[in-house]
């Protein structure tokens, strides 16, 4: 399983895609990071007098993590699309299927490898807010909660992308469907906010990936939010395993 994960990560870094994603997301987020700092510097004088005013972490780090989530929403499908769809197109899937591996080992291995890539990306993103601690006091608990949120979010993106990649042999189709699903799960909450009917709105807002991310950005670690992400991850992984198994039967 770890071998598979390592191989997946290694092959990812052999393609220029991984490097370009790392570089460009870093570039965009660094720009946003600077604008947030700029804004903070402007209003710093005004808010310094107010007791209990929001600090660097609230005004710079958290908006950055929020932006990062939106950016990663559009990047994640590009990384996950190739997971199974490309193996299918290259006809290399039989290599794994005829090796003494169970389906869940194959799925978990691929999942962990890709998630490992996102962890590297996350580490690079978190370096930016952490660099503020050189010149300022950071609220590390808040930052940790935000990073936990982003990690869980990325883990869910990966699981959803992996499942959709297992449905097709065209990586582009996998990317499109993943992006559409993630986007829908992101904005489904808007219907929830509109409160058309009380019942549907609670269901929709419960389904929203964003709705469970926001409390974490505010430093609220609810077990229900974490449970939501864990349910999403395990459900999609289980569906991927089932999908690959059923392929053998049909």
């Amino acid at each position, binding site marked *: 399983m770890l*071998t*598979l994960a390592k*191989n997946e990560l290694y*092959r990812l870094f*052999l*393609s220029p895609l991984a490097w370009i994603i790392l570089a460009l997301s870093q570039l965009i987020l660094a720009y946003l990071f600077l604008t947030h700092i700029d804004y903070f510097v402007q209003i710093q004088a005004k808010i310094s007098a107010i007791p209990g005013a929001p600090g660097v972490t609230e005004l710079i780090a958290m908006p950055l993590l929020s932006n990062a989530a939106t950016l990663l929403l559009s990047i994640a499908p590009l990384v996950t699309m190739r997971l199974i769809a490309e193996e299918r197109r*290259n*006809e*290399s*899937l*039989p*290599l*794994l*299927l*005829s*090796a*003494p*591996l*169970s389906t869940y080992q194959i799925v978990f291995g691929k999942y962990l490898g890709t998630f490992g890539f996102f962890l590297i990306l996350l580490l690079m993103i978190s370096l930016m807010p952490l660099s503020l601690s050189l010149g300022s006091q950071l609220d590390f608990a808040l930052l940790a909660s935000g990073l936990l949120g982003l990690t869980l979010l990325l883990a869910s993106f990966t699981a959803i992308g992996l499942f959709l990649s297992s449905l097709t042999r065209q990586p582009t189709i996998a990317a499109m469907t993943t992006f559409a699903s993630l986007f829908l799960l992101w904005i489904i909450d808007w219907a929830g906010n509109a409160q058309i009917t009380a019942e549907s709105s609670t269901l929709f807002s419960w389904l929203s990936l964003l709705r469970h991310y926001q409390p974490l950005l505010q430093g609220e670690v609810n077990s229900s939010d974490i449970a939501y992400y864990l349910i999403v991850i395990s459900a999609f992984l289980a569906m991927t395993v089932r999908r690959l198994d059923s392929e*053998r*039967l049909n």
Partner: protein
Amino acid sequence: MSSILLSAKELSRYYGQQQAVQNVSFEVKKGEVLGFLGPNGAGKSTTMKMLSGNLSPNHGEIIINGYDLLTEPKLAKSHIGYLPEQPPLYKELTVKEFLLFCAKINQIHSSNIKKSVDTAIERCGLSQVHQRLIGNLSKGYQQRVGIAQAIIHTPAVVILDEPTSGLDPIQIREIRHLIRDIATEHSVILSTHILPEVEMLCDRVQIINQGELILSDTIEGFGQHMQTSRLLLGLATPPAINVLQNIAGVVRVVPISNTQFNIHYTPDNNPINEIVGQAAKQHWQLNQLTPQQHSLEDTFMKIIRNEAHSDEQGV
């Protein structure tokens, strides 16, 4: 202990309504090369996929080295090596990286990995190219990497699905040589639609057509399978064809040119004496009389045609 390494019993597989493989049973003994022969679309690849665990049969069981592929897939799969029609390769890796990965997923003990990779590289003649990217290799070398991948964990049975398709004649010869070499240590199941390949490589041959096993025999028995024999007859001034046809023992006369004929006869009723006698008596000017060897090709075509023929009659 019996030396049967792989046994398949009553395998059947449907694709929707269509039956791809029907009630196929066979066994592979230790050190044996079994050839699966059949036209395209006969169910060869489906059978290979089932044997390698890529496809579950709708019915039947597969026992590999004593382990049931369906109930103990991991143990059973560790005893097979499989090369599909399209070699499953990661083209962005070098040959060595790829084989290292294959060794690991086949659960070779970490202390033996390096050794087994080196052995596979050497056996498959990849020493020259092991640093190169698989994507940059020629089709023949890619096929070798595919074979190396299948034998890296020294499985009991190696399953090769059309290993020589799409290669040039020199590469084909090299790959055949390699398969012969592999057969000294492993049992090999090989599918092909090329007859000489079976003749050269296999100890036993099974012909599959429309999903059914229609013949299973040793390679010698296969050659003798055809009942009738042929003579090539050359006459400078030949009589009408029905005269030849009426000679005792002649089953069928097929003219090749004005002066040459193919005479089909049953082996137990050889018309050679009669033909020679008549030719001398009636001045046909006999100039050629050659018994024809049966190529496997003929036999193959004959078996498949007969089968189709009796099918029609059945309907």
